[in-house]
């Protein structure tokens, strides 16, 4: 079934079929085979690569050899005239997706210290040569976002690697004695005799934490390479996974006072922005209306002599709209601004196509407007945008940090009537937290966390507690149930050895980066939504020098009392409008469940996927419970819908839709005229 997609934009109102959306970016694929199936190798790698054609309009190529095939689709950002991939040197062949921002410095270092000569001006060649000079230690030298497949032609082994925070994706499938690698899961849909199927236990883990832990995914036999690691594959040898980076590894020191902290922080952030503006194509920024993206946009203006483009989402539903704050910044900087207004219909009409790109269930519709926004960015001729992701994790911006601080303070005097009053300062954007008549109920809720907030889950205790009721929604045949001890054991297995030396808030930061940031915000909401339309997102707050430096700053520089991201406001209060600096933290959100109801009924598309027939057909969920959920809101949409109902509805609907795409993969074709590379290396 193909659904029509309507996109509401200020200047165009067009209808596209799901197969005709023009979508572009950079992707990689690989097949490591033990069966030397040369006959089908070329077809298989080309088919895998074709599913990534939306990730690169500027060219594609393949590399073939006895043991391995590599594929690549390219979006040209640096060295537009060369740098085609896959690229081969005397020693290696590489297929690489990403940017190494310090590639110029690395190049200079290799030229001057090691006598290396370069044939192109591309960053890809710098990556290749870095491995020749430094081996896997090259990864520690990279400042950037990347996923790569590096074939050692001499030793006949494959090294795969991913950046420190998982900005760029890389998935691995083990199937019929071969290994398959790809930027996106849909590449595996082309593999003969393979169909993606949910691992329902992992799906529940994903529901609990908004990500599966470590290297598992929601699909059977499919792994994700963990951020900050590399893995080596060699025929007839066991696979070896090694970690080249872990959060908090630097064990640095905090500046003693806030003035010193501000000085160091601003220098690092400024340099991070400067590096991320390196591009042979124009760079824009996203402006959400919050302080993070406002600062990134301000710093961009300091390094950009010309007027540049800024992009924002606004909402027809004013409960979600932040355009007042966006305009404050636009007026301050006089940027060339573009706004995309999104309404319920746009969310509903585009959700299925967006899920094709998410590839996994989501919990809120917030990624959807970003999917549409990247289409606008692409239409405006911009291939790269800087955004503010990462700031909430590294600067204690989430309310989960405040919750933990409150619980720690309250638990010292659990009978205090004064201490729990701080609850009123949590979640300022949620009505029921602000209502003094409801305070007693919220206090009752938080009392339950006083005894175990300090376990290994830290701030995730509350998220997990809220989400565990999803177990009831699954098909009873799966016997899904929540086991806290088992979850804690899983979490313990990913904790570094110095975890227990950290403060409670540092521990929470680590877990937020490992779960929400890496597996959801950078993945479904970040990479997938921008790459769907050929836009590369860059994240200055995720420069590892900055992350590591800030990790060891005193907690009070980041959360001062209940003032979140304290150092950010302190550092930039002169440059950013007061209305933005002083506004209470408000997460970026979009209308969720309400987008899928029209005149008291589910929309056609949502009705199809949430119908008892379709629920039974896919077999993941309990059809009686899902019908009850739908009926709850078909009876009446209340003025306020709770987090849990919004989350569960979106999760179930997106699960169903993601499953639809595994059963109905698109038929993609590469444009042969854009083929830049075919290397046959059978020596």
């Amino acid at each position, binding site marked *: 079934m193909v659904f029509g997609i309507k996109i509401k934009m200020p200047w165009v109102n067009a209808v596209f079929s799901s197969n005709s959306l023009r979508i572009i970016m950079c992707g990689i694929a690989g097949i490591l085979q033990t069966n030397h199936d040369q006959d089908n190798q070329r077809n298989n790698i080309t088919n895998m690569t074709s599913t990534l054609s939306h990730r690169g309009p500027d060219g594609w190529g393949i590399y073939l050899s006895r043991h391995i095939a590599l594929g690549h689709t390219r979006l040209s950002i640096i060295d537009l005239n060369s740098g085609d991939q896959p690229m081969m040197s005397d020693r290696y062949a590489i297929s690489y997706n990403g940017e190494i921002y310090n590639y110029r410095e690395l190049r200079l270092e290799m030229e001057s210290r090691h006598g290396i000569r370069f044939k192109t001006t591309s960053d890809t060649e710098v990556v290749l040569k870095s491995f020749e000079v430094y081996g896997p230690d090259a990864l520690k030298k990279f400042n950037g976002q990347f996923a790569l497949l590096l074939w050692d032609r001499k030793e006949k082994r494959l090294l795969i690697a991913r950046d420190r925070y998982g900005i760029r994706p890389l998935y691995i499938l083990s199937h019929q004695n071969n290994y398959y690698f790809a930027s996106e899961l849909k590449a595996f849909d082309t593999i003969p005799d393979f169909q993606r199927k949910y691992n329902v236990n992992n799906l529940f883990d994903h529901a609990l934490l908004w990500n599966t832990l470590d290297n598992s995914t929601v699909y059977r036999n499919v792994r994700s390479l963990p951020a900050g690691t590399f893995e080596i594959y060699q025929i007839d040898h066991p696979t070896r996974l090694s970690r080249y980076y872990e959060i908090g590894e630097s064990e640095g020191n905090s500046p003693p006072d806030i003035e010193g902290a501000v000085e160091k922080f601003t220098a690092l952030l400024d340099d991070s922005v400067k590096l991320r503006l390196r591009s042979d194509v124009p760079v824009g920024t996203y402006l959400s209306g919050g302080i993070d993206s406002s600062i990134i946009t301000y710093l961009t203006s300091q390094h950009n002599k010309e007027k540049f483009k800024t992009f924002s989402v606004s909402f027809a539903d004013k409960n979600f709209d932040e355009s007042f704050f966006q305009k404050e910044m636009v007026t301050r900087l006089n940027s060339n601004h573009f706004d995309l207004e999104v309404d319920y219909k746009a969310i509903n009409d585009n959700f299925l196509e967006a899920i094709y790109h998410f590839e996994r269930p989501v919990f809120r519709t917030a990624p959807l407007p970003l999917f549409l926004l990247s289409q606008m960015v692409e239409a405006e001729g911009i291939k790269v945008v800087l955004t503010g992701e990462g700031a909430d994790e590294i600067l204690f911006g989430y309310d989960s940090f405040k919750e933990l601080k409150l619980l720690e303070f309250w638990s010292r005097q659990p009978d205090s009537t004064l201490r729990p009053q701080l609850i009123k300062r949590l979640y300022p954007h949620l009505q*029921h937290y602000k209502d003094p008549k*409801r*305070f*007693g109920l919220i206090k009752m809720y938080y*009392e339950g966390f006083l005894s175990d907030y300090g376990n290994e889950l830290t701030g995730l205790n509350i998220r997990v*507690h809220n989400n565990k*009721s999803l177990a009831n929604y699954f098909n009873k045949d799966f016997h899904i149930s*929540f086991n806290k001890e088992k979850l804690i054991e899983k979490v313990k297995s990913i904790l570094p050895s110095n975890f227990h030396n950290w403060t409670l808030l540092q521990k929470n930061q680590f877990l937020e980066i490992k779960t929400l940031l890496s597996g959801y915000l950078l993945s479904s909401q970040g990479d997938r939504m921008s790459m769907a339309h050929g836009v590369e997102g860059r994240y200055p707050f995720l420069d590892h020098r900055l992350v590591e430096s800030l990790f060891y700053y005193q907690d009070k520089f980041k959360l001062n009392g209940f003032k979140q991201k304290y150092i950010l406001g302190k550092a930039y209060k002169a440059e950013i409008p007061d209305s933005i600096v002083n506004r209470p933290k408000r997460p970026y959100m979009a209308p969720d469940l309400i987008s899928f109801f029209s005149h008291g009924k589910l929309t056609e598309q949502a009705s199809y996927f949430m119908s008892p027939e379709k629920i039974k057909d896919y077999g993941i969920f309990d059809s009686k*419970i899902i019908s*009850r959920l739908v009926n709850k809101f078909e009876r009446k949409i209340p003025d306020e819908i709770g987090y849990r109902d919004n989350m569960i509805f979106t999760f179930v609907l997106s699960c169903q839709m993601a499953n639809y795409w595994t059963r109905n993969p698109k038929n993609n074709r590469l444009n042969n005229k854009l083929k830049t590379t075919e290397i046959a290396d059978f020596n």
Partner: protein
Amino acid sequence: MAEEIQNKLLDFITRSFMVEKEEIDLDKSMIDEGIIDSFGLIEIATFLEDEFQIKITEDKMIRANFGSVTKIVNFIEREQGK
């Protein structure tokens, strides 16, 4: 009377929070069991006020009154008896 209150309450809980009646332990905390979150408490309190014509003041918002189905039923009975 208590039985009628309990039945109405259980009907509300099953249709609002996607649990089956047999899954609800009448004496265990629905908060701790994860059946309801903070917003769920608001939904229950609003239902109780509307359905049983009682007023729930802040001093009454304690686990002794809301900690389980049994406690809620007892609380409503006491309030209605006033």
